């Protein structure tokens, strides 16, 4: 695996992965066969007065250098897991290590090897963009000459070099997101945690963010990214963990997760229901057609019609006519149909019995 040691020369603007593996703080062996980037075992978190566990015994490993996607709906336990891994939440039980450092036993050492980009803007509003980067680095003990050089490089890389002296309040959401990533990279973390990074970003800002994540991965930084966006998880992640109700439901590459879903194809139907129509009986009518495995109504609040995802055996096209017939018979009208390969969203629906959004 290319850990990018040679990429660390001045021309490379992406800060390379660092970690205890090559330092003297933690003697964990040579660079290429050190500990996993993240190790989590039997992690349980119950908040005071909560009726049940927010995390109910989660275990997984993140390999060094990979982009690891954490996929789940709001309240699934993603942020709690990231909170524990970044030393901000104490677990009720279980073990968690980042770059070989136990985050519960030695949070101070853990904070040196991890970087966090939170959901909400937490930039220092009293400081300029550049000062935000520089002071962050000084908190982490980055020598002065190095932090000056790195700040300029990162401002350039993240498209912020034209206004280094502006205050965070004067920038857009996408720019603030970039500042927070640049800031997190100032101390060259071994593992970078991005918590719901594209929430609230416009499409252009989102693409920029995705590009940067790809660049970081190429430079060897391990990235753990939480999202409830299927596309984001599928596009960026080497492996995806699906989490719901505090339990890890699946963990694999996006392709393997989808493959494991049987070889079904899908028909996505948009239906204008007739008066008095009942989605439950339509669903069972569709499901009873020969060759159809099952039909699933997708939750889509704000949508006046219905969306059904129909899982069929073999090719989907021959099923369009019979499906349309059943819909018409129920008094509804088929307004749109799309033939699809199963994707992560299907995996999620299959695992949890409900749609993500």
């Amino acid at each position: 695996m290319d850990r990018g040691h040679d990429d660390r020369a001045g021309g490379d603007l992406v800060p390379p992965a660092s970690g205890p593996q090559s330092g003297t703080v933690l003697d964990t062996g040579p660079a290429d066969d050190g500990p996993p980037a993240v190790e989590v075992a039997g992690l349980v978190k119950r908040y005071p007065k909560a009726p049940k566990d927010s995390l109910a015994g989660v275990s997984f490993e993140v390999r060094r250098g990979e982009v690891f996607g954490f996929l789940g709906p709001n309240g699934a336990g993603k942020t709690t897991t990231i909170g524990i891994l970044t030393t901000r939440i104490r677990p009720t039980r279980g073990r968690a290590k980042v770059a070989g450092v136990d985050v519960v036993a030695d949070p101070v050492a853990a904070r040196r090897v991890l970087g966090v980009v939170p959901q909400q803007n937490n930039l220092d509003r009293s400081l300029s963009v550049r000062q935000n980067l520089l002071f962050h680095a000084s908190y982490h003990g980055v020598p002065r000459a190095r932090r000056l050089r790195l700040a300029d490089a990162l401002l350039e890389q993240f498209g912020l070099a034209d206004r280094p002296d502006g205050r965070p309040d004067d920038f857009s959401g996408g720019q603030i997101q970039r500042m927070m990533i640049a800031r997190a990279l100032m101390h060259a973390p071994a593992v970078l945690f991005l918590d719901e990074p594209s929430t609230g970003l416009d499409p252009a800002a989102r693409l920029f963010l995705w590009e940067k994540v790809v660049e970081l991965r190429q430079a060897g930084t391990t990235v753990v990214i939480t999202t409830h966006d299927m596309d984001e998880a599928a596009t960026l992640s080497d492996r995806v963990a699906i989490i719901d109700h505090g339990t890890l439901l699946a963990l694999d590459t996006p392709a393997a997760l989808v493959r494991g879903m049987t070889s079904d194809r899908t028909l996505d139907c948009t239906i204008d229901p007739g008066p008095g129509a009942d989605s439950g009986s339509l669903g069972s009518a569709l499901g009873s057609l020969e060759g159809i495995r099952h039909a699933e109504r997708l939750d889509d609040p704000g949508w006046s019609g219905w969306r059904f995802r129909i899982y069929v055996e073999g090719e989907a096209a021959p099923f369009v006519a019979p499906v349309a017939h059943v819909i018409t018979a129920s008094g509804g009208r088929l307004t749109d149909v799309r033939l699809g390969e199963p994707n992560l969203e299907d995996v999620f629906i299959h695992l949890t019995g409900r749609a993500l959004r």
Partner: protein
Amino acid sequence: MTATPVPATEVPDEPEDPAVALADLAPWGPWRTGLAILRRDLFVTGREFPIFLAQVILQPLFLLFVFGKVLTELGYARPGYEQVLFPGLVALAAVLTGLQSTALPLVIEFSYSNEIEDRLLAPLPIGAVAVEKVVFAAMRACVAAAVMFPVGIWILGSIPWQASTAAAVVVMTVLGALLGAAMGLILGTFVPPNRINVTFALVLTPLIFTGSSQYPWPSLSHIRWFQVVSALNPMTYVSEGLRGLMAPGVPHIQTWICFVVAIGYLVVLMVVGMAGFIRRALG
């Protein structure tokens, strides 16, 4: 020679491996981090120093002027009242500035701006972030208290002062600044943000007027209940301590008692405040 250390930190081509570069600093890490955070606070305050000065001068200036000058000249306060008032106002400036310098920023940083997160994620113990807040607030408070001296001379013409007790005055003032900052730590972490206005009104006014800054505590013996209430206010021991050191002719609580009680209060308030801070910072 200054040439030797310079290349160690300033040479552009220091080791490129960031892990090694950071690890070299490991034994000093938490201290360096704490100092870096303090440097940030000093940097931000330094930039707004005139505004900060105006902020801390205004209230004591008016108190001194109205109580020490106007009331005395009009004959409503006896001459010599400034002997009572001045040390008390130095205590008030120290305690109150300390309190406001921790409480307000903490409420804002924990609830609205989340700014404190970057420091909570820095490589130092969470409690050290609270200590830094208190130390920095106490520094501001000491400036506010120091400013009282020229202001006092300007308004009153002269202030009670004894060269022999100068060092003890400094120590007592620092103690008062730390006490105020520790009280602010408790307020800033325990009070929910939607209650901060009410809490400030309910806490600050009694604190200001039961802290023996405008009256000598021993002379309250015939308003017993108020004397008891005043005895509970930590500021009383700072006011009385400074009074004993600066104007020993005025009735005052014995200085050593003031030091012991103030230190005791400081320890208790810091323990409670740190616990609140850590509870707030960690989920």
